[in-house]
């Protein structure tokens, strides 16, 4: 259950995306030690960001692409989702992929790398093309770079 106290917090308690099917996927992912990492047959990762206003840790699940050692994710929707707004303010994130959990630095793609990484993401999930057409904005792409060796 989420912590329902109000105000800024820096506690280590993690608050999962409240959307039921997302929360259920995260619970399965974590409880299985990362073995149940796919959704609809696609690989997913879990990303934990620090809430830009609340200071709380927020976790959600995303499809991703790979670019060398880096993970690549797309922010869909009519507006920037909270996880994306959070990482713009607090780029230090925690990523779980399968059984591995690691600290990473998140940043938006540069204009120069965007076209290539968009193609990477279209291969991961072709439906991003439809989402982009109707979003009314350029869907942001973020790269997650692992810290340390």
């Amino acid at each position, binding site marked *: *259950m989420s912590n329902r106290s*109000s105000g800024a917090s820096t506690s280590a308690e993690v608050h999962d995306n*409240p959307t039921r099917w997302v929360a259920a996927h995260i619970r399965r992912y974590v409880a299985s030690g990362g073995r149940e990492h796919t959704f609809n047959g696609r690989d997913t990762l879990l990303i934990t960001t620090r809430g830009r206003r*609340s200071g709380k840790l927020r976790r959600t699940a995303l499809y991703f692409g790979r670019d060398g050692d880096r993970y690549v994710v797309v922010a869909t*929707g009519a*507006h920037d989702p909270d996880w994306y707004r959070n990482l713009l303010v607090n780029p230090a994130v925690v990523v779980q992929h399968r059984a591995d959990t690691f600290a990473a630095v998140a940043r938006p793609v540069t204009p120069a790398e965007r076209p290539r990484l968009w193609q990477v993401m279209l291969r991961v*999930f072709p439906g991003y093309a439809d989402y982009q057409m109707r979003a009314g904005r350029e869907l942001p792409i973020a790269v997650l770079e692992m810290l340390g060796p």
Partner: protein
Amino acid sequence: MSPIALPDAAKDLIRSGALGHLVTLGSSGAPHVTCVWVGIDGDDLMTAHLNPHQRKLDNVREDPRVAISFEGTAMHPPGLKEYVVAHGRATIEEGGAAALLQELAHVYLGPDVKFPPMDDPPPGVRLRIAVDRLSGIGPW
């Protein structure tokens, strides 16, 4: 803009995928209720509609007062199901319906879904509800 701040617990309930039961008032004063997908923009509630001539939208054009309820899953003593009711005033914003419906489809339907399904949806309208009061059973 909502005159009150929506508590995180209320936002979590709304983002869980709970349908909103939206009540508007007809020109005769008759209540009209319908179920809607609801998003959150700051402290405002947002709905999206491809057809700008729905009854609920015509009602809001005449009388902006609305109420909307959401049923949760948590139980509170002595065994009452959690729910939240938001009271407020709605305004209609032109366009942007398909983008918001696609975003809400990922809450209410799941991932990997294209909604609305057509390639070239009409602009539609969005309903913005400025919330001035919450009631119900729960921490709000």
